[in-house]
C-alpha cells in the first residue's frame, strides 16, 4: 500500500472518528435539548405543578342557550326565574335560581314539575340539585330563592341549540300524607 493511500485512509478515518465523537456528544446534547423542547412547548414539565383540577369533559366547541320559564297552576304565589336565559357549554356545571313568594296569609305546600322543550332534551338534562325534588312549604308571605344545579350531557344531539326548562308549581292538596309524584319525570 502506497504512502499516499495510507495517508488518504488515515484522513478518512480521522473524519469518521470525529463524526462518531460528535454523535456521542449529540446523545448527551439531547438531554438539555429535550428539556428545552418540552419547556417551550409546555409538554411534560415535571417541575411545575399540574394544572388545577377541572372537568375535562366540557365541550367548549358548543354553546347551548337554556331558557327558563315559570308557571303556576292554581297557586296564589309569585314564581319567576332569576334569569331568563343562560349560555352554557355541554358538560359545564351551571347554577341558576328561581324566586318564589307566598302571597297568602297562611302556609301553602307546593310541588314543582319540570318540563323540557324540545322533549328529547330531557334525557340529556341532568339536574344535580333542584327545588323540584321535594315539596316546598312556604309560610305566610314568605319569599325564597331556590337553586337549580344542572349539567347538559355532551351527548346532546348536535341539532339542539336551545333548551327551554319550564316549571309548573302545583298545590299539594291536603297534608304531607300524599306522596309526591316522582319529581324529575320529564313532561309530567
Amino acid at each position, binding site marked *: 500500500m502506497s504512502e499516499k493511500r495510507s495517508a488518504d485512509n488515515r484522513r478518512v478515518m480521522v473524519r469518521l472518528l470525529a463524526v462518531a465523537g460528535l454523535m456521542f456528544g449529540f446523545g448527551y446534547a439531547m438531554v438539555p435539548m*429535550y428539556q428545552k423542547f418540552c419547556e417551550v412547548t409546555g409538554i411534560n414539565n415535571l417541575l411545575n405543578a399540574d394544572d388545577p383540577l377541572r372537568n375535562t369533559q366540557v365541550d367548549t366547541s358548543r354553546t347551548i342557550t337554556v331558557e327558563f320559564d315559570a308557571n303556576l297552576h292554581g297557586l296564589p304565589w309569585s314564581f319567576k326565574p332569576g334569569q331568563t336565559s343562560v349560555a352554557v357549554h355541554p358538560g359545564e356545571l351551571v347554577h341558576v335560581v328561581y324566586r318564589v313568594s307566598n302571597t297568602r296569609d297562611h302556609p301553602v305546600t307546593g310541588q314543582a314539575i319540570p318540563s323540557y322543550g324540545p322533549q328529547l332534551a330531557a334525557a340529556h338534562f341532568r339536574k344535580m340539585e333542584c327545588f323540584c325534588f321535594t315539596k316546598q312549604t312556604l309560610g305566610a308571605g314568605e319569599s325564597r330563592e331556590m337553586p337549580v344545579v344542572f349539567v347538559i350531557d355532551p351527548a346532546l344531539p348536535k341539532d339542539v341549540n336551545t333548551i327551554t326548562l319550564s316549571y309548573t308549581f302545583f298545590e299539594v292538596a291536603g297534608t304531607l300524607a300524599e306522596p309526591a309524584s316522582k319529581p324529575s319525570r320529564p313532561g309530567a
Partner: protein
Amino acid sequence: MEATHVHGAGHAHGDDHAHHPKGIMRWITTTNHKDIGTMYLWFSFAMFMVGGAMALIIRAELFQPGLQYVEPEFFNQMITLHGLIMVFGAIMPAFVGFANWMIPMMIGAPDMAFARMNNWSFWLLPPAGILLTASMFVPGGAAGTGWTLYPPLSIQMGIGMDMAIFAVHILGMSSIMGSINIVTTILNLRAPTMPLMRMPMFCWTWLITGYLLIAVMPVLAGAVTMILTDRHFGTSFFNAAGGGDPVLFQHIFWFFGHPEVYIIALPAFGVVSHVIPAFARKPIFGYTSMVYAIASIALISFIVWAHHMYVVGMPVAGQLYFMYATILIAVPTGVKVFNWVATMWRGSMTFETPMLFALGFLFLFTIGGFTGLVLSNTAVDVQLQDTYYVVAHFHYVMVAGALFSAFAAVYYWLPKWTGHMYDEKLGQWHFWLSIISFNIAFFPQHFLGLAGMPRRIPDYALQFTDFNQVSTYGAFGFGLSQLLFLYVVLKAIRGGEKAAAKPWEGATGLEWTVPSPAPYHTFEDPPVLTESKGHA
C-alpha cells in the same frame, strides 16, 4: 476444514506464508480480510444458536398458560438476552462478515483499509458475547428489561445489567471500528476504473450502513453510559427520584434504535440485489433508483424514532408528524421491492437455494413491511403497542428479512469461500423447512396480538392457548431446521463438487473473476474493469 483450504490456497498463490503463524495464533493475529470474515461468520452462527436456544426456552414456557418451566424473572432475562444477542451478536456480525469477505473482492482491493483494526473489531466481539451470556450466572441474573433497556427497571437491576451495559459498549466500539474500516475501504480502495455509481449494490448498501452505524452507535453508547452513571455515580438523567425523566431514555434509545433497523435491513437489501439478478439472469432493474432509495431510507430513518413510543404521552401534533414521516419510508422501500420484482420480470429464472431464500425474503419482508405500516398509524398502534402483533411484525422483518437474506448470501458465496458446491438438495430442504416453520411460528402471533396478548409476559389468558401452541411447534421446527444448515455448510467445507470460479451462470462482479476457493490474497494489483464487469 475451511482453514486448510484457504491456507493452502494462500501457499499456492502467495509468497508470504512465513508471515502468518499456524494454529490458533493464526486466527488471533490475522489481518486477512477473508480470515476475519470467516471468524465473524462463525461467531455470528454461534451467537445465533445461543440466541435461538433462548428463544426456544421462551416458546416452551409459552406452550401453555401458567408457569411451567421457568420463573418469570428468568423468562424476562431470556427475552432480553435473546434480543440483544440476536441483534448485536448474530445479525450484525453476519453482515459485517459478508462485508469483510466480499467487499474487497467486489471492488478489486487487496484487503480492508485498516487490516490491524479489522482484527481488533472482530476480537472485541467474543468478550462482549461472553459478558452477555455470563451475566445469567451472576447474583440477580442477567438484565431483565428487554433489549431496549428502559429505565426505571434498568436503573434498578443487579450486576447483570452492568455487564449488559459493558457488552453494549464493546459491541458499539467494534461496530464503529468495523464501519470506519468498511467506509474507508469503499471510498479509497476501489479499483481505479470503478466509479461510485458503478459499484456493486452490496457495497452501496454497506457504505450507507457504515455511515448510519458511525452516526448512531455513539448515541446508544451515550444512552447506556447515562444509565451506568445513574446507577453508580449519582447522576439523574433518567432517575425520576433525582428529577430525571425515563421518557428521555426512550427518545435517545430510539434515535439509535430506528436507524439500527435499517443498519440490519440495508445490507440484507444489498445481498438480495445481487442474488435476484444472478438467478434471473438480468442486470438489476433501476440501479440508480436503488442507490437513491437506500440513501433516502437512511436519511428518513433519523427522523421517525418516536413511532416506537406513541403512548408515552406525546401531543397529537407529534404523533401525526411521526406517523406521516414513518409512512413516508414506505415510498423508497416500495421502489426497492418494485425494482426486485421488475428485475425478475421476463428473466430466465432458476430456483437454486440462494434464489429461494431471496424470494422468501422478498415475500415475507414485504409482509413485515405492511404490518409495519399498520403499526405506524398512531390510532392503531395505541391498541397494538406491546402486543404480539409487534413481535410478529419485527420477526418478519428481522428473521424473514435479514436472516433469510443472510442465508441467501451464505449459499450464494459458499462456493467462492470453500471451493465446493453445497448440497443443493439439502439446501432446498433447509429453505422449505425454514420458511414453513417460520410462518407457523410467527403468523399466528399476528392474531394473538390483535386479540390483545401482551409481549414479554410468561403467562397468558386461556383463550390464547391454541395459537401459542401452534407458534411453539413452529419455533421448534425452525430451530431444528438450522442444524440442517450447519450440516450443509460443514459438508461443503469438507468436500463436494468442485466449484468453478463463477458457479452461477448469471452472476456478475469482480468476486467471480478470482478462482474458487478465493486465494488467500486477491487483487494485489487493482483489476481493470471492462464494461461487462460493472455493477452486479
